[in-house]
């Protein structure tokens, strides 16, 4: 017999849909079906049932093979590595829960490590911009209920946040937006003709690397100042038309992603986009929101911030917190050879970092906490698989608009597997002993 768990939160992307229904076996050990999730979310749940899952830690041998070891031995290896390192990095955190992050922070503080999350290669530049200029924003329900001007700049939700447009931004009939999609005008700014761009009322096919200039031109248009004939490949008449379209709405929103956070100018793109949003508030109500990728990168940043004061790239090596991306950020630390140990959890830097950085991970003492086999686990010395957070264990996560939602456990993990939090607690307790003995 089966039972259906409702109000399940999907632990994949920053959309953090919380209306999933998951059918599990009566004994709670098998996950059978998933309803309401997108293709990616469905797979996140179903693939946890793979018969060939790695269920125990494995240590990389000198001859390249892997040897299974116990969780206790894995705890010992990890604690010893962190105790001995002069400058370890504890990276990732974006695919685990805030409770695990909190234990990780205790470890980082004890080990005097650097700690960082996936914002370092994603929306970290957004955070830099927010630090330089602020951010007028709102929760996703405000978009659903009020927004009538939607701009997607440098992002492709049709692929990366598949249910975003149906749950929040384009299709819903909200309190003041009873006509749904018909209430809204959609603008997409992207050099590519993406599936999202195909839905837009206006697609600005911008010249690559010139987002900063185009955003500046929109502000110039708001000030009714002179414009050159073409900016970023867009004619000035079109720029003024889009500026007018934005002004004429009742409530506008700019959503943005990697297309601007990790292309030329990075944080400056976001800075000027936020400046444009603030500028638009002289005419009508406008907000801006980053399309966060991992389902709990936001949460990792929140916990770092309330415990250490900074949202990512935090350096605790001097016994107190310091922050300066470029100095304290993960890719820079790796490429410059600043580290002597690497601890990865809830992320895959092996796949996402520049290869020059990944080579360093391969050469360092390294631990990778991940249920999957990944490029990171492949180059790490110790691979510790854990239960899937949000599937086999619950825990608090933060959506892209900073709303906290407590993920649910829907199914048991494979026999004897630990969760992130359980493993980290053991590492913390062992590290405390090692540091106390010193």
């Amino acid at each position, binding site marked *: 017999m089966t039972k259906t768990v409702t109000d399940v939160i999907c632990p994949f992307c920053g959309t953090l849909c919380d209306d999933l229904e998951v059918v599990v076996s009566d004994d709670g050990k098998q996950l059978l079906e998933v309803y309401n999730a997108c293709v990616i979310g469905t797979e996140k749940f179903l693939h946890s049932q793979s018969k060939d899952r790695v269920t125990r830690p494995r240590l990389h041998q000198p001859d390249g093979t892997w040897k299974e070891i116990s969780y206790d031995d894995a705890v010992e290896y990890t604690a010893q590595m962190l105790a001995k390192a002069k400058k370890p990095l504890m990276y990732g955190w974006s695919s685990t829960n805030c409770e695990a992050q909190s234990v990780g922070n205790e470890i980082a503080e004890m080990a005097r490590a650097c700690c960082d999350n996936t914002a370092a290669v994603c929306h970290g530049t957004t955070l830099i911009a927010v630090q330089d200029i602020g951010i007028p924003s709102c929760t996703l329900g405000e978009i659903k209920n009020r927004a009538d001007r939607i701009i997607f700049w440098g992002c492709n939700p049709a692929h990366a946040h598949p249910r975003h447009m149906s749950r929040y931004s384009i299709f819903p009939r909200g309190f003041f937006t009873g006509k749904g999609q018909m209430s809204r005008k959609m603008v997409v700014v992207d050099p590519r003709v993406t599936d999202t761009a195909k839905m837009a009322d206006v697609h600005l096919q911008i010249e690559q690397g010139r987002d900063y200039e185009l955003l*500046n031109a929109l502000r110039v248009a708001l000030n009714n100042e002179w414009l050159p004939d073409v900016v970023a490949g867009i004619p000035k008449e079109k720029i003024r038309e889009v500026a007018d379209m934005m002004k004429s709405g009742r409530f506008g929103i700019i959503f943005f992603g990697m297309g601007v956070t990790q292309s030329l100018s990075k944080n400056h793109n976001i800075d000027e986009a936020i400046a444009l949003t603030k500028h638009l508030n002289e005419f009508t109500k406008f907000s801006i929101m980053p399309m966060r990728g991992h389902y709990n990168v936001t949460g990792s940043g929140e916990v770092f911030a309330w415990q250490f004061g900074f949202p990512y790239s935090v350096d605790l090596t001097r016994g107190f917190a310091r922050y300066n991306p*470029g100095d304290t950020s993960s890719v820079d630390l790796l490429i410059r*050879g600043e580290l002597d140990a690497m601890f990865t959890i809830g992320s895959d830097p092996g796949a996402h970092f520049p290869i020059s950085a990944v080579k360093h991970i391969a050469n360092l003492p390294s631990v990778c906490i991940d249920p999957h086999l990944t490029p990171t686990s492949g180059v790490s010395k110790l691979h510790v698989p854990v239960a899937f957070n949000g599937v086999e264990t619950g825990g608090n996560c933060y959506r892209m608009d900073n709303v906290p939602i407590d993920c649910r456990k829907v199914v048991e993990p494979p026999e004897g597997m630990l969760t992130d939090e359980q493993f980290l607690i053991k590492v913390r307790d062992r590290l405390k002993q090692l540091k106390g003995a010193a």
Partner: protein
Amino acid sequence: METVTITMKNPPALYLEADNVSPDAFAGKTAAQIAELHVYEGNTTGTLGKYFDVNGNAGATAAETKIVVKGDVKKVKYLGFKMSAGEVVVEGSTDLYAGAWMTGGKMTVKGNAEAFAATAMKGGELVIEGNAGNYLGAAYRGDWRGMKGGKILVKGNAGSDLGMYMLGGEIVVNGNVDVHVMTHAEGGRTVIKGNVNSKVGGQLVEGTIIIFGTLDVMMPGYKYVDDVELEIDGAKATFAHFIGDTGERHKKKKGQVIYGNLYKKI
């Protein structure tokens, strides 16, 4: 002027943070005392003497102290940190934060300096004979109060994000500059003798930018006004004069809007 020479003898495995290598930290100390000053390698605390040979006593005050740094210090950060007077000469290249938060005195780097040199500088002089990295003379993260005074000269090239949130002082680069010059500035002046890529003067409220070489793409917020003759370092030349950033807010004085000024040599 008393001179203290520190020579790298024991390179670190990782990187060193040498916050204490400044005339202010050395002032009033003997060579032996200076050798006891703390230096940091990751989460370990060592002494200056563990990594450097220290010769010479400091002057009684920072103003009377000169520091010469010899040997390979490419992995040493924070040389000249927060100096207020005196002199620091780095004979080779150095890492991040050269002269960061300095308020006076003179620092010379004979080689290259990496990112964050002269962060939030308030006064004094920094000369980099080689190249400067990114964020030269920029504000610290989140602070709208960047470089307030002093003078920076780079004889080679500079990277990106030069003079971010600048309020005052002057930066001169003899070579080329990457993207983002004086973003968000509210004062100060930057002279680029070579070429600059783009995104110059973005979101600038007030300030002056003078470019001798090429500028790949002008920000749309800059509009041409007229041609003017300027004298820079004793040489006169004619420049196309632009005002901007017209997308940004500006102050008014006696009813007149005060724009930033960008001059590009014709």
